[in-house]
């Protein structure tokens, strides 16, 4: 089964961390990514630019509106993601817990990807 691991955190917190701390966290992310590539769970993953760089297409009464900023104004924003392959939810959760989110008080949403029907 495939799962999206969506990493939400407070961007301002990241900004306030000393450079050495930021470097340490980035290193932990690299190590995590390498580990799940090696274990065969990794399918995709990336850090995203900050929420202020986002643009939205909003459909309103049949017309697409372009707005500046992320989907929702919230203290915590989507900062990155992984797409993984896991046997079941427990394995996906175990992987999600290994993402270096502790020092950022991050929330990682684990969302199953809809099973695609095998092509005819």
């Amino acid at each position, binding site marked *: 089964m495939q799962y999206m691991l969506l990493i939400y955190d407070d961007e301002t917190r990241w900004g306030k961390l000393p450079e050495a701390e930021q470097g340490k966290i980035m290193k932990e992310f690299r190590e995590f990514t390498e580990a799940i590539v090696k274990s065969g769970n990794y399918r995709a993953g990336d850090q995203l630019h900050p929420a202020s760089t986002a643009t939205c297409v909003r459909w309103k009464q049949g017309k697409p509106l372009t707005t500046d900023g992320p989907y929702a104004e919230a203290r915590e924003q989507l900062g990155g993601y992984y797409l993984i392959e896991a046997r079941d*939810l427990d394995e996906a959760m175990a992987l999600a817990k290994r993402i270096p989110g502790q020092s950022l008080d991050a929330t990682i949403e684990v969302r199953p990807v809809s099973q695609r029907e095998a092509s005819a």
Partner: protein
Amino acid sequence: MTVEEVHREHYGRILATVIRLVGDFDRAEEAVQEAFAVAVESWAIGGAPQNPAAWLVSTARHKAIDQIRRDARRDARREELERHLRGRAGEEPPEEEDRLRLVFTCCHPALAPEARVALTLRTLCGLTTEEIARAFVVPVPTLAQRLVRAKAKIRDAGIAYLVPAGDALPERLSTVMAVVYLVFNEGYSASFGPALLRGELSREAIRLGRMLVELMPSSPEVKGLLALMLLHDARRATRVDASGLPLTLEEQDRALWDRGQIAEGARLVEAALRASAPGPYALQAAIAALHAQAPRAAETDWPQIASLYGLLVRIHPTPVVELNFAVAVAMADGPQRGLDLLERIAGRGELQRYHLLPAAQADLLRRLGRAGDAAAAYRRALALVTNDAERRYLEKRLAETAAVSRA
């Protein structure tokens, strides 16, 4: 055995096995229902089979396969079908392990807490949606939706049907025990809902507790949980007076306590305490056992209880536990010592809105003969209390105390 008796005794274990064989909660429930319907007809003619549960499991599996065939869907479903057709033919006795798989799945942390409770009662205990809704004072459609969503989540999020292994087990088991204890407490409190149905909930919780003890014989906490429920339940007849006012342990008529349950609870406590580090359920059960075994309130072994609370406070420091510790110390070493402990707790400021703190202070002040201070504390408690029965209890105490301070 009649079909109804088989249903009452074995529904949970039959469903648990069919879920494993069929791989889907909804399909399994439908199939088991159909199998019971067939049983009603065919056992009336030919009598009940040698192994009714195994017969029902096999019949349900066949019904499920028939249903899969009828479903007009492609590849994914056909794969499922192949898998089941490859399975063993003939009678399929339930595996003991299946009920554990079911309870761990129903109590998975990924499910909302209310959903865990509802799903456990529905699948393991065979309560209907209506019965569960009535017991928790929730509209039936709401409860039904809760079950639908929970089963969908199990299927779509890939919650696997298994007993957690190794490191994962202790935490997962504590989630299961929390669900069982919650069901017990819902049945135990006579605050609202039809009294008869609430009693059934406590019985279901005890049944689940017995199942856990049977299937996890090496777990001391599971014994502790069952013991705790049995010991509380043994006093069921005396918890409130005729007007619904809660009675203290001192006021309860011990002749009405169920001695058989107390004895069973005490045996389980002994077994649970043999573990190297007793857990919170075992300790709470040990305390309950000491209360239950005292022939009269005056003969309660308070020093032992106080020392057990001392252990409990370290591993499970909830407000109620801290207060009960102070009360036990007061009983063992005098009201002043208890008051000192309560002062320390009050000083931390965490329990500012918790009415039981001033209530406990009031009680000890009353025992010290400080009627004026006690009345003031009862008033503080009354300002915070929310439960109607408890309010009446506090008002009664305040009236008694005020009478003394006027005398």
